């Protein structure tokens, strides 16, 4: 067995170890872990396992490819032999088959790469024009009374948005501007929908939305004219196109970008019905406290006025007048009383004077009144000797006889 010893000087491989070594060699090359390969599909096989097997060919070579079921179920593209595609994945070796192959994770129609380049070019151009500037973004109204929706009338996106709006703010009015959102006619449809919506309905905000799809499906939202129509929209636009990871030029142009249609409807209703009710209750409270304060102020000022009023009231003047009247009447009465006393005194004086003039008063001074046959004797010629006479003095009368000349 000397020959064997000779061979022992070289490394000993089994098929397996060699193949594994080659595999590790390939896998250690970082540039082979992330490759885009362009070619034409042939030998396409889709067994029940769900994995996809095909060969990628061009005029000079061929490359075995496999796409595992996980990635295959996410594939939106319908594969067929002869289709020109871009395939992304990593290069490795299938040890059992002894074949190096491309483990594919993404397959795009050939030209989509070019589409992406076009996307980047247009984005840069519009960006340079300032169309995506943050300063251009208009504020989204907190409480939109009317929401415009530009989307397909049959898509799940519309249903999601309507459900969200119904749940959050059913007081809102929704105006749908239906349009196709996919295909050649989509850009013109979207532009026309935006324009009519603004012209006819003047919504407070517009939701521009579409459910998920391939980059080609979403391509209408990368159309330059669509971008300009969004910029020119009178109402602010919220975009909700595709999934969270999809960015379109419409998203950059929109005043607000939502990751999904549902999120767009949520962003359009920053205030929901519960918050509105709370704010109504608060307004009610503000009203009540305002009016209570006002009433209090008025009450105080009324009390003050009342005080002032009392000083100038007719009542008070009346009291004054009444007082004056009392005064006058008192004085009048006094005057009356005084007048009477005066009259009485005057009368008494008169009476006294009258009494003084009475002959009886003279009699008190010792005088007598002599009458003959009831006639007052005032002359000696009226009497003769022996004539009977009546003499009246102060306290009575007596008879007397004339005796002779005095």
């Amino acid at each position: 067995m000397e020959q064997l010893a000779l061979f022992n000087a070289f490394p000993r491989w089994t098929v397996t170890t060699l193949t594994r070594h080659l595999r590790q060699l390939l896998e250690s090359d970082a540039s082979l872990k992330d490759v885009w390969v362009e070619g034409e599909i042939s030998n396409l096989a889709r067994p029940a396992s769900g994995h996809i097997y095909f060969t990628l060919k061009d005029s000079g070579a061929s490359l075995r490819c496999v796409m595992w079921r996980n990635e295959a179920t996410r594939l939106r593209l319908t594969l067929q032999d002869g289709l020109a595609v871009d395939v992304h994945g990593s290069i490795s070796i299938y040890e059992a088959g002894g074949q190096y192959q491309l483990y594919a994770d993404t397959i795009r129609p050939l030209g989509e790469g070019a589409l992406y380049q076009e996307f980047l070019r247009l984005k840069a151009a519009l960006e340079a024009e300032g169309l995506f500037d943050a300063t251009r973004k208009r504020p989204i109204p907190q409480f939109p009374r009317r929401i415009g929706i530009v989307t397909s009338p049959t898509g799940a996106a519309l249903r999601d948005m309507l459900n969200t709006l119904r749940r959050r703010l059913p007081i809102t009015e929704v105006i749908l501007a239906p349009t196709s959102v996919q295909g050649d006619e989509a850009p013109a449809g979207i532009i026309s929908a935006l324009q009519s919506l603004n012209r006819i309905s003047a919504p407070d905000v517009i939701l521009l939305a579409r459910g998920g799809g391939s980059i080609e499906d979403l391509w209408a939202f990368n159309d330059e004219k669509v971008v300009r129509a969004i910029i020119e929209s009178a109402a602010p636009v919220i975009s909700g196109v595709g999934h969270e990871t999809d960015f379109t030029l419409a998203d950059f142009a929109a005043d607000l970008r939502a990751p999904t249609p549902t999120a767009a409807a949520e962003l359009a209703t920053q205030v929901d019905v519960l918050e509105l009710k709370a704010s109504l209750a608060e307004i009610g409270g503000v009203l009540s406290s305002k009016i209570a304060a006002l009433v209090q102020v008025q009450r105080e000022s009324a009390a003050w006025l009342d005080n002032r009023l009392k000083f100038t009231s007719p009542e008070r003047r009346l009291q004054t007048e009444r007082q004056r009247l009392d005064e006058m009447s008192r004085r009048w009465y006094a005057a009356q009383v005084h007048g009477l006393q005066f009259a009485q005194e005057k009368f008494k004086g008169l009476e006294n004077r009258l009494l003084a003039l009475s002959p009886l008063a003279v009699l008190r001074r010792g005088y007598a009144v002599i009458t003959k046959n009831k006639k007052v004797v005032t002359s000696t010629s009226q009497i003769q000797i022996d004539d009977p006479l009546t003499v009246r003095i102060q306290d009575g009368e007596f008879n007397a006889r004339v005796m002779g000349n005095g």
Partner: protein
Amino acid sequence: MAKTETKPIDKLTFEQAYAELEAVVSALETGEQPLDEALALFERGKGLTKHCAELLDKAELKIQKLSGETLEPFEEKE
């Protein structure tokens, strides 16, 4: 500055009622009305608040569809 709204409250849309409510509150906040006017504003505000709350309670999303230049009701397909 006091605007005289005479439209019956129950004829107002939520939008109108809410806008007027905001006007009433800010008018009252200036506090420059005579008392009777302020009380009238307050009563109006209370009515508007109630009306808004009622409208919210019974609100149903109103959906219309643009068809050419006109609006028509939109029927949702489940």
